[in-house]
């Protein structure tokens, strides 16, 4: 019996019980749609976070007073303060540094004549742009002269620009940061990603200016200026680990700590950050996928259930087919084609529904869901296997029927 004919016969049998078949298919549709939507959204989230981290800069190593980012590291030691002197020592002694920049970050109200909003205000040096892969869209970046002369100038992120100036060219206009007047001299190019790691919502000023007029006492400890962090760009990918370990060694000696003491400062590379983040997102995605998989499993049980009913109902048909010469494998195949047809119809509709759900998420800007070919193939294959797996038992039952008894079945 050729395959096309088998599919035709299967479709006819399924059509004969339209409602029943539809409900069975619905079980698979929901399962597959859930798998596709959740995996796509998970993958989209992973890709979004990865691209944000990669957007931070090339070969980036971050030193910060914050705890190490990621899983673990739940130590109880006091967080050490990071000093400007630490920066000087690292810049002087660590090898393979392409570029290094210290920064101090606060949240400040930023106002124009008719608008006020809170933004991250970061005191930076000129190398900040290089290390963090920031470019200036219009105007200029903070210069050494700005720092030397403690000029009240600011470079603002793209989001800040649009929110405060609403399309007007902000260059040469004034903003008040915590009621201190600054002149906008540049606007950063948008990094194209939204989220916590993009620099689009930052206001950058000269670090020296910040220390002298804006940050005040909270930015010093016993008269020593402190930093929120130091960003280092390693000269190449291979030297990142060396830069991390040398930096840690220098920080230990600067802070008078032994080898086994808790550093209390975080030195992490972009790679570490990426791997921690991707571990989290991969775990989450797998978890979501597994939950969705359960509903697919339930759908499969639905297929098995309905096929068992169908085999019983069609005992006489099976008897007849065997009486006119159908071998066992033909009957087995006939019912398997039915269950696989059910599950593939469900799989196809489920993929369409799941991709649509993912599309709605993307459209609404909640998350840039990545509906990838491998997710679709996975869902499609999985649904076919569900049909096969849950079809085998009922189909085998049918194929094993004895023709005389089946023919006499009432």
């Amino acid at each position, binding site marked *: 019996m050729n395959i096309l004919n088998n599919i035709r016969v299967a479709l006819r049998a399924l059509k*004969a019980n339209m409602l029943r078949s539809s409900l069975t298919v619905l079980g698979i549709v929901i399962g597959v749609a859930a798998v596709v939507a959740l995996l796509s959204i998970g993958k989209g989230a992973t890709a979004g976070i990865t691209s944000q981290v990669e957007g931070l800069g090339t070969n980036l190593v971050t030193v910060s007073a914050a705890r190490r980012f990621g899983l673990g590291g739940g130590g109880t030691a006091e967080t050490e303060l990071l000093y400007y002197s630490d920066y000087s020592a690292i810049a002087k002694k660590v090898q393979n540094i392409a570029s290094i920049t210290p920064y101090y970050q606060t949240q400040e109200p930023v106002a124009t004549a008719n608008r006020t909003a809170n933004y991250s205000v970061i005191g930076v040096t000129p190398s900040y742009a290089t290390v963090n892969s920031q470019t200036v869209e219009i105007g200029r970046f903070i210069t050494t002269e700005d720092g030397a002369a403690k000029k009240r100038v600011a470079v603002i992120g793209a989001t800040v620009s649009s929110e405060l100036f609403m399309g007007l060219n902000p260059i040469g206009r004034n903003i008040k940061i915590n009621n201190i007047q600054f002149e906008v001299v540049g606007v950063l190019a948008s990094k194209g990603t939204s989220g916590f790691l993009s620099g689009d919502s930052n206001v950058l000023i000269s670090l020296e200016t910040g220390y002298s007029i804006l940050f005040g006492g909270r930015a010093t400890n016993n008269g020593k200026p402190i930093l929120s962090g130091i960003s280092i760009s390693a000269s190449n990918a291979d030297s990142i680990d060396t830069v991390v370990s040398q930096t840690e060694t220098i920080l230990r000696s600067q802070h008078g700590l032994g080898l086994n003491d808790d550093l209390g400062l975080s030195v992490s590379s972009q790679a570490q950050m990426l791997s921690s983040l991707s571990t989290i997102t991969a775990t989450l995605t797998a978890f979501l996928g597994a939950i969705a998989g359960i509903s697919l499993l339930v759908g499969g049980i639905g297929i098995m259930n309905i096929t068992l009913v169908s085999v019983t109902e069609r005992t006489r048909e099976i008897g007849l087919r065997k009486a*006119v010469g159908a071998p066992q494998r033909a009957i087995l195949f006939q019912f398997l084609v039915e269950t696989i047809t059910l599950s593939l119809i469900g799989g196809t509709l489920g993929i369409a529904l799941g991709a649509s759900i993912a599309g709605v998420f993307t459209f609404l800007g909640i998350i840039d869901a990545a509906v990838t070919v491998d997710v679709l193939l996975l869902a499609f294959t999985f649904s076919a296997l569900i049909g096969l797996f849950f079809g085998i038992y009922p189909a085998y039952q049918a194929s094993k029927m004895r023709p005389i008894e089946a023919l006499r079945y009432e």
Partner: protein
Amino acid sequence: MIEVKEVTKIYKVGDDEVRALDGVSLKINDGEMVAIMGPSGSGKSTLMAILGCLDIPTSGEYYVDNIEAAKMNDNQLASLRAHKVGFVFQTFNLLPRTSALENVMLPLTYDGTKMRDCIERAEKALEVVGLKDRMKHHPNQLSGGQQQRVAIARALVNDPAILLADEPTGNLDSKTGAEIMALFQHLHSEKHQTVIYVTHDAFIARHTDRIIHLMDGKVVRDEQIKNPIKAGTPRPDEMLSNGNGNHAKE
């Protein structure tokens, strides 16, 4: 030619053994038309199942066209049915929602015949039973007699060595039953088709050349009929009590 030698069939019902067939031997030549008669429990259905390669005997030998079928496994029997046997059932057993043509094609789809040949042969078989103009009809659009003729076309489509019918007129009125008997006689005389059918009804049985009487699993009489009743002849008065559809079913 088919030949049954010393065939017994024993069923186990709980701890009891039921001898449905007890040493049956018979030979039916090509082109013969034979009726098998006997009361309920005489073993007719069991004999039909063995003749039709639906079941194997507990002991004894069975040859269809010189092929020994008594020791075959399920799939070998299926293949033998696909090539050598045509079945007609009392309840027609047509597939619903399936055209007459496709019903007739069914046996061919299991023996690897190409789709085009399947259609061609099925059309021919329907022509033989006089239903060429009803090919696209579904069973629910056909009368009982027409449905049984579709079933006969299905039984003929693989050019079987034997056409086996189990109470073929049992579900039909006498006029339609006569049509079916006429068709059997036509197949027998014109196509030299071997036809074997089981019946309760002595009048229907007398449409053949030979009646094999079964009783308690044994052949009790093998009767040659000199002048078979020609299909369409009215039922004689003395056979009315045993009329079609009136007798108790098994």
